[in-house]
């Protein structure tokens, strides 16, 4: 199993560890709901170094990324980040990712440089996919093995990080980034991004810098009772926001239009994989949609449970489910036939022999003030 620079630290903290995407990762340190509430109320730190990072540089880097991703990368200025996906040729999704347009000092004149941040489970698949499309002579580097990633999330994240860095965090807009010194370590990339909905930052560093930064953040966060947060709470936090998880809610067979990712599918762009399929889906509509639902029952919906209408006809499948720590009820996401996608529609979730009542609900499930 692969490790991160912090694996020993997690074990030392008594974390429950498990394999995730080939990495030995912390699932929880205390309980998922305590960790969840800590992030919503104040601040928590995640080691998400399993994520993959590719650097793409060249005079046609923009053109290559424009062709392989669904969002419009031409909109990005150096210092901007963007959520996007890699559509395949069958109208599905190879992966979802973040695209960072790096500063011009990262490349020669007339060139553009980007960092793509991809899901750990898809690093090899994405690398091959992008490489296949690289007829532009763009230089590609997989820096995943040398790169660590911390997510500092929650309303007090800024108060913790500003003690440790010269980067102007107050000025940093959502989905932008800057580079600077963090905890004495140089050339650290800090972005105002995250997967929790509670605000905060993601911090990219070299492996050798990661323990120093983690320790400094844990020290600086003491006054906020900062806690390390595992992948368990990462999942409940993202699910309350209705954020998709690759492999659960989106995959090689699901369309971004069906998944509610139309906002990152810029079909007015000139060309990218499956653009005609997505244009047609926009025009003619899709047959299924990813929806959120609240349970009217105490049982928790799980991935692959069947969804039925109230007359017992199969209308879809659950893709994610959990007990929402904020709402204290079970919530889920799943694909249903469009006729049942309207908010307020009563549906049934099939759990073994039982049919559980649920109602289609607007996402995000939780409003963050």
């Amino acid at each position, binding site marked *: 199993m692969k490790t991160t620079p912090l694996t020993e630290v997690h074990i030392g903290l008594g974390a*429950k560890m498990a394999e995730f995407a080939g990495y030995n990762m912390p*699932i*929880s340190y205390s*309980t*998922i*709901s305590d960790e969840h509430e800590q992030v919503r109320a104040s601040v928590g730190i995640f080691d998400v170094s399993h994520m993959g990072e590719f650097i793409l540089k060249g005079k046609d880097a923009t053109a290559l990324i424009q062709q392989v991703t669904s969002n419009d990368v031409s909109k990005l200025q150096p210092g901007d980040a963007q959520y996007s996906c890699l559509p395949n040729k069958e109208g599905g999704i190879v992966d979802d990712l973040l695209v960072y347009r790096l500063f011009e000092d990262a490349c020669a004149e007339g060139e553009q440089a980007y960092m793509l941040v991809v899901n750990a489970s898809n690093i090899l698949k994405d690398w091959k996919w992008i490489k296949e499309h690289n007829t532009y002579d763009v230089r590609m580097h997989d820096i995943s093995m040398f790169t660590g990633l911390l997510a500092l999330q929650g309303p007090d994240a800024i108060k913790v990080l500003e003690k440790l860095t010269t980067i102007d965090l107050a000025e940093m807009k959502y989905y932008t980034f800057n580079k600077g010194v963090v905890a004495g370590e140089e050339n650290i990339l800090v972005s105002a991004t995250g997967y929790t909905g509670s605000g905060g930052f993601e911090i990219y560093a070299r492996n050798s810098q990661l323990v120093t930064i983690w320790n400094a953040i844990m020290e600086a966060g003491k006054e906020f009772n900062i806690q390390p947060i595992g992948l*368990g709470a990462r*999942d*409940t936090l993202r699910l309350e926001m209705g954020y998709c998880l690759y492999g659960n809610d989106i995959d090689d067979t699901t369309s971004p239009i069906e998944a509610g990712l139309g906002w990152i599918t810029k079909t007015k762009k000139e060309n990218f994989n499956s653009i005609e399929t997505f244009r047609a889906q926009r025009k003619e509509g899709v047959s299924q949609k990813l929806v959120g639902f609240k349970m009217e029952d*105490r*049982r*928790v919906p*799980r991935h692959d449970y069947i969804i039925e209408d109230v007359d017992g006809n199969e209308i879809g499948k659950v893709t994610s489910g*959990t*007990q929402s*720590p904020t709402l204290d009820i*079970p919530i889920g996401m799943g694909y249903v036939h469009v006729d049942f996608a309207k908010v307020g529609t009563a549906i049934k979730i099939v*759990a*073994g022999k039982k049919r559980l009542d649920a109602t289609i609900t607007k996402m995000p499930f939780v409003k963050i003030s």
Partner: protein
Amino acid sequence: MSYPKELKYSKEHEWIRVDGDEAYIGITDFAQGELGELVYVEVETVGETIAEGEVFGTVEAVKTTSDLFMPVGGEILEFNEKLSDSGDDEPGLINSDPYGDGWIIKIKLSDLSELDALMDAAAYKALVA
């Protein structure tokens, strides 16, 4: 991790405490640790007689769902009302006190000889440790 000596254990990580021809059943300390924080316990089989190895209920943790299996056959006499949503509704007792207040059901044993197939504490410890 604790493995009380006076209990018997099943491969499915249930424990049983026998008292005459009745018994209390719960899940082990190991099982609650693997499941994590429990949020709901469902037992709708009170009054039924269920065979060894069959499902008598379900527990929901934040991350996962798990069925509960009879370590031996018997009639379900009682569902711990401290756990039940019609009682105190505190499924977390299974996490905090799996062998005590976190007991799940009380049964009347169908066949005492079925107990012989279960593990003692040492054998169960060897299985999970």
